[in-house]
């Protein structure tokens, strides 16, 4: 026994210094040796063995086989050994629950130990053992410990309640631990208070509606007192908790602020940031003319600047937060530009963040300094940083008009460096500058053209092409330049192709005589040789425009473009407010609401603005930060002409002026109704306009769409599903007189902001369409294809939503939806490869779920997915998978594998997926069943803003297998009795009341009864989805 002899030597030396030997590689039969050692009589030997076990555990070896032997060592008065055994227990108890019971006695005994350290250790460890039987035994000791005389034990017990709650929430409630925990807020010891606050906050988070943290002025006062006395960590817990409180009036708000401000001088940055959070939030309530308000603003700047002298990681957190604060209250840091100047040795993440803030703070007063700095940065080494710096120069030009000229000349200097990526970046921003200041800087075009050959990035190429097209009349050889691009047309990215098409059409309209051949060439390339629907569609539009009415074409294609806004990258205000409530936390680092990255119920509550934030979420996780901003600023509009491609392709993948531009084309195109209609007839298809009101920051566009809307009602499915939140009021036209309800299948009018779907004329609806989509929340709201009306045979299909984001899945992006088509359940997926390499070997698997959904066959992705390619897959699903109740009920956890890795995501399917076709119940059975189901199982819901009469409604519902069995009219109310059957045989009965007397019958009342009441909520959601589409 080699190591044993080693041990003897070591003991002589003092074994403490040589623990590293436990990390040495294992030999065969080690477990055996350890076993013998663990059962040795010698204490010292035992301890050494346990240490060895722990070391093995650390490096990931499975030493669970030693469980009984290790647990045997637990009965010891040596605390170090005890702690080691506990550590082992915490790791393996879950896998050996029966054995773990052996430890209970010792735990319970230890909880009575005279030494408070041991009592606390026992209760602390017990809480970490997630074994039901142990948990049961935990209750009594925990109750005692919560009232222990020693504060150390009480503070440990307070946290233990949170642990227990995580294992068994019901038990905690039943045992009344929550009340005891609440009492601890009044404890005399500040640390006990802090831990109780932390535990309560955590428990409250998973019970959004509970009144657990009943914060009132008295408790707030207690917390503020404890704040002065507890450890730095405790201060953080308390401040974070305070931030959730809503003061009753401005006076209370001010008095809390006054007591929190001293924390700004704490050495711990987290204390400072949490204090900033409280102040930023409560400041909202203070009247702006109050002296104190001004004082407070002044007090906030210095500590924020001080955070920048912390370690780089903390600087990063601070900078991400300052970025939010600067957007919310620019006045705080407006004089502090210099501290954000980049230092040569800053880590790259600090540099990039500083740059971002510099641009935000740039103003006329400091622009000279900023520009000088940016020019320095543009010569640095890191490519990303340099690019961002160049882009920043362009942004300064757009933001501060006085500086535009200097910026342009700086950019030209940079172009002279001939550094490839600098040149490309500069061209992209110069394009923006042209847009902002038309007819001012076009003299530089010649310089730009010189660099045409060196551009190899699509964005830069597209920008350059846009410039050439836009200013074709000033560039003598514009046709030659564009022609040179045309040679490799099919090798270009879509972005470049689209831009080239538009540019050549512009050129043609400006110089028709010389370029006829060129335009023919590009149109045929785009329409005949391309399989990209976007390109083809745009090609067709131009073609028909040009062939029908060149004058109108000119009006359309060369229409005046709206000016671009200077603040295009601001975080959407509702999200910003939510993020301000999360200062210091991960949400503020990611600039995403917690629900975007936290699983389960925790953190899903939106602070302050609960209803609206859901829609933003979608856009946010999808793109990286600058793209997100672009998504907001750039129009997400697309005209699709091909019915086969009835899916939304958000254009907003990058800042691209050309997209706004092409959008303008289309809207103005629509504005000349005759032509547009012709175009549409010619192509024999439908046009969908997908609109996102968030992006309607270009006010002039709205009337354009609206007027187009009138003329195009037969062809356009138009949905404004995202309400602009009071920022941009969307005016929609009233349905014109020739508009008939019947023709459109009954679903008409209504408030456009709620998603007035104008159904297409059913006769023209191609059969291939199958289902009609519905509002599924989030960005899905943005479009409505075909409307569920007039298609009673298909249930609705929600638009695809992003399930897996490229940034989280090594470039694989998955969006999808669920559909039920003729009794077959399908999962429709779009797989997009946003990585650099080809993806192959796709496979899919589901976790157990509430209704046993499982793939009916393997996922068929036949060809490898090359970069930037998207494949649509329909996966038939069966209901034969293993069942496990999920939270929420309709949650589905999916694993998708490819040659790179396995990725996990979860999505929620509409319950209507499970509504079977033979769900029509016999009337008598219905009556009997209705009576039979206890009234407790009945759930009441209201559906508002529905403009349907009962017939239309029941027709719509039938499309989703919600069957109306009977109808009667009582006192001006239509009562519909409906039944639904789920795939697992559960019946759901419903009674729906619709006011018939009122022509605006906007409200429906729904009573749902089911033996499994938990499904009611989800059935109601289906009703709402179906009826609102």
């Amino acid at each position, binding site marked *: 026994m080699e190591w044993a002899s080693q041990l003897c030597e070591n003991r002589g030396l003092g074994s403490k210094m040589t623990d590293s030997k436990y990390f040495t590689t294992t030999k065969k039969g080690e477990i055996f040796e350890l076993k013998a050692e663990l059962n040795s009589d010698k204490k010292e030997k035992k301890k050494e063995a346990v240490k060895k076990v722990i070391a093995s555990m650390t490096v990931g070896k499975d030493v669970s086989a030693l469980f009984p032997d290790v647990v045997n060592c637990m009965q010891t*008065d040596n605390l170090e050994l005890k702690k080691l055994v506990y550590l082992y227990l915490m790791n393996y108890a879950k896998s050996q629950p029966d054995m773990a019971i052996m430890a209970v006695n010792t735990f319970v005994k230890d909880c009575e130990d005279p030494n408070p350290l041991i009592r606390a250790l026992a209760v602390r460890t017990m809480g970490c053992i997630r074994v039901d039987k142990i948990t049961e035994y935990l209750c009594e000791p925990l109750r005692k410990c919560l009232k222990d005389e020693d504060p150390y034990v009480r503070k440990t017990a307070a946290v233990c309640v949170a642990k227990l709650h995580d294992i068994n929430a019901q038990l905690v409630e039943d045992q009344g631990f929550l009340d005891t925990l609440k009492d601890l807020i009044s404890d005399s010891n500040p640390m006990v208070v802090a831990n109780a606050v932390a535990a309560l906050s955590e428990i409250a988070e998973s019970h959004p509606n509970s009144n657990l943290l009943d914060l009132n002025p008295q408790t707030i006062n207690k917390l503020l007192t404890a704040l002065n006395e507890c450890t730095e960590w405790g201060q953080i817990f308390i401040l974070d908790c305070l931030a959730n409180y809503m003061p009753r009036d401005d006076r209370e708000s001010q008095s809390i602020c006054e007591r929190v401000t001293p924390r700004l001088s704490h*050495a711990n940055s987290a204390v400072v940031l949490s204090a900033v959070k409280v102040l930023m939030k409560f400041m909202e309530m203070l009247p702006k003319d109050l002296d104190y308000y001004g004082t407070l603003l002044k007090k906030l700047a210095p500590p924020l600047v001080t955070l920048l002298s912390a370690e780089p*990681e903390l600087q990063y957190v601070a900078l991400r937060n300052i970025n939010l604060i600067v957007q919310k209250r620019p006045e705080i840091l407006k004089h502090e530009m210099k501290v954000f100047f980049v230092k040569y040795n800053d880590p790259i993440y600090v540099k990039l963040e500083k740059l971002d803030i510099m641009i935000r703070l740039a103003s006329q007063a400091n622009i000279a300094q900023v520009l000088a700095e940016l020019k320095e940065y543009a010569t640095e080494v890191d490519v990303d940083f340099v690019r961002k710096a160049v882009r920043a120069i362009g942004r300064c030009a757009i933001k501060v008009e006085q500086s535009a000229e200097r910026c342009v000349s700086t950019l030209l200097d940079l172009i002279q460096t001939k550094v490839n990526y600098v040149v490309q970046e500069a061209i992209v921003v110069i394009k923006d500058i042209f847009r902002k200041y038309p007819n001012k800087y076009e003299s530089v075009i010649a310089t730009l053209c010189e660099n045409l050959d060196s551009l190899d990035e699509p964005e830069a190429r597209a920008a350059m092409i846009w410039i050439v097209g836009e200013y074709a009349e000033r560039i003598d050889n514009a046709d030659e330049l564009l022609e040179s691009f045309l040679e490799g047309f099919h090798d270009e990215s879509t972005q470049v192709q689209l831009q080239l098409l538009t540019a050549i059409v512009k050129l043609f309209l400006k110089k028709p005589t010389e370029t006829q051949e060129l335009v023919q060439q590009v149109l045929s390339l785009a329409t005949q040789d391309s399989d990209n629907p976007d390109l083809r569609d745009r090609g067709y539009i131009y073609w028909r425009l040009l062939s029908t009415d060149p004058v109108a074409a000119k009006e359309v294609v060369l229409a005046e473009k709206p000016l671009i806004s200077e603040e295009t990258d601001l975080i959407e205000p509702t999200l910003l407010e939510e993020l301000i409530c999360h200062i210091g936390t991960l949400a503020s680092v990611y600039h995403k609401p917690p629900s975007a990255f936290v699983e389960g119920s925790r953190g899903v509550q939106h602070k302050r603005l609960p209803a609206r934030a859901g829609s933003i979420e979608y856009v946010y996780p999808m793109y990286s930060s600058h793209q997100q901003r672009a998504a907001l600023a750039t129009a997400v509009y697309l005209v699709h002409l091909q019915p086969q491609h009835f899916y939304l392709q958000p254009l907003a993948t990058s800042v691209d002026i050309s997209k706004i531009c092409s959008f303008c084309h289309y809207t103005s195109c629509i504005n000349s109704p005759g032509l547009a209609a012709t175009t549409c007839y010619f192509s024999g298809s439908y046009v969908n306009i997908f609109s996102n009101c968030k992006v309607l920051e270009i006010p002039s566009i709205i009337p354009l769409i609206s007027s187009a809307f009138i003329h195009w009602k037969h062809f356009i499915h138009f949905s404004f599903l995202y309400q602009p939140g009071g920022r941009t009021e969307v005016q929609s036209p009233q349905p014109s007189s020739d508009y008939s309800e019947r023709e459109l299948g009954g679903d008409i009018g209504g408030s456009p902001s709620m998603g007035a779907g104008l159904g297409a004329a059913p006769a023209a609806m191609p059969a291939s369409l199958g289902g009609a989509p519905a509002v599924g929340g989030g960005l899905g709201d943005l479009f409505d294809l075909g409307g569920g009306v007039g298609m009673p045979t298909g249930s609705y299909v929600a638009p695809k939503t992003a399930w897996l984001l490229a940034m989280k899945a090594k470039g694989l992006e998955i969006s999808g939806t669920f559909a039920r088509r003729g009794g077959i359940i399908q999962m429709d997926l779009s797989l997009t490869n946003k990585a650099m390499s080809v993806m192959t070997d796709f496979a899919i698997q589901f976790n157990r779920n509430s209704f046993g959904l499982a793939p009916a066959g393997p996922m068929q992705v036949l060809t490898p997915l090359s970069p930037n390619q998207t494949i649509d897959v329909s996966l038939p699903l069966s209901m034969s998978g293993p069942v496990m109740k999920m939270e929420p009920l309709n949650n589905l956890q999916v694993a998708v594998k490819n040659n790179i890795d396995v990725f996990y995501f979860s999505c929620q399917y509409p319950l209507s997926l499970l509504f079977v076709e033979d769900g029509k119940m016999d009337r008598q059975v219905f009556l009997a069943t209705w009576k039979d189901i206890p009234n407790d199982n009945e759930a009441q819901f209201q559906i508002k803003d529905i403009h349907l009469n009962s017939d239309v409604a029941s027709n719509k519902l039938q499309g989703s297998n919600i069957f109306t069995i009977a109808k009667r009219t009582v006192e001006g109310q239509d009562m519909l009795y409906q039944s639904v059957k789920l795939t697992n045989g559960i019946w759901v009965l419903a009674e729906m009341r619709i006011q018939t007397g009122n022509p605006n019958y906007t409200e429906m009342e729904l009573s749902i009864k089911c033996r499994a009441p938990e499904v009611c909520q989800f059935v109601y959601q289906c009703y709402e989805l179906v009826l609102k589409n």
Partner: protein
Amino acid sequence: MIGGLFIYNHKGEVLISRVYRDDIGRNAVDAFRVNVIHARQQVRSPVTNIARTSFFHIKRSNIWLAAVTKQNVNAAMVFEFLYKMCDVMSAYFGKISEENIKNNFVLIYELLDEILDFGYPQNSETGALKTFITQQGIKGQHQTKEEQSQITSQVTGQIGWRREGIKYRRNELFLDVLESVNLLMSPQGQVLSAHVSGRVVMKSYLSGMPECKFGMNDKIVIDKQGKGGTTDDPVKSELGGSGKQSIAIDDCTFHQCVRLSKFDSERSISFIPPDGEYELMRYRTTKDIILPFRVIPLVREVGRTKLEVKVVIKSNFKPSLLAQKIEVRIPTPLNTSGVQVICMKGKAKYKASENAIVWKIKRMAGMKESQISAEIELLPTNDKKKWARPPISMNFEVPFAPSGLKVRYLKVFESKLNYSDHDVIKWVRYIGRSGIYETRC
């Protein structure tokens, strides 16, 4: 809250792995290794999100410390905790190295169990921890009941950073005012940004529970006193503070022993200090900074293959004072083939591996000037990208505080024990060092 804490060596092998939350699986350990430690690209953010799990990491020499969570935790707190964790470990076993971590892994687990409960940081003051987490194994069985409750009351108490019953034969304290002066200067000599970040580090060897009061030439305090007409400054001479000038402090932060509410209301700094060495406060000033050195660069490109560099440094402080450890670092292009240097003072050397000329001067008195000139020969290259011309940086140490901060007094009161403020031996030292002291060329 923090779901787990891992420590890796540079190869990505796990040295310590402690999981606090059920939502963190064993695969999290590997996820971090694969996606961050073994990532091909340089780390672009200290926070990484992998499969809905967030990883916070810091590095100490070649050791990675990572905290992992699935919740919306307080990110600033997590980093502060990781730094604190490093402090605690260093206090126990010195440098954070693979060897030390392996040697002390049992101790580290014990510490992690104590200072992080269910992911919530608990008292992590080494002073307190050392009373009951000891390298010799806990003395649990030998403690008396009083000792035990003394430990727990200290760990949870209001003065968690100091234990009772400390006794010294000689009551003594040392104050170090350590400043780092940062400068970014344009080639033309214009100050682009300059600030001093300073620290007051105290070593206290005082008996009992002394109540201390610290005073410096803070403009706000001096002005207030001036207004009140109390020109009588009892401690003016005590620590050699001149009290003539006052300085404007932009912001300061304090060790948790300082009563912040008192500072907020009266701007007085009062506290019961921890025993031994700790950082009392940090501060930052931006006004009226004494820049100890001025660097005047002159770079001339002679054709495509030659650069001429001339750098003059001027010292700008009292002639009686001496600056030490002066080092000027002049970056050279990557395609440098040879360098000839002539300097008036000190030694200068071209270090090819660092792409810089390093000029070292041992000592230099105030109001002096020195110069270096160099000829740099370049290899002709096709590289279109221009040389980025990194700034010339400087290092030095001066025996005064560039911010102008002066300690006015540090009073010690201990009512229970029989020593008075006068019996305490007090030492003050000022050291100004260069932070990032750069001049663009």
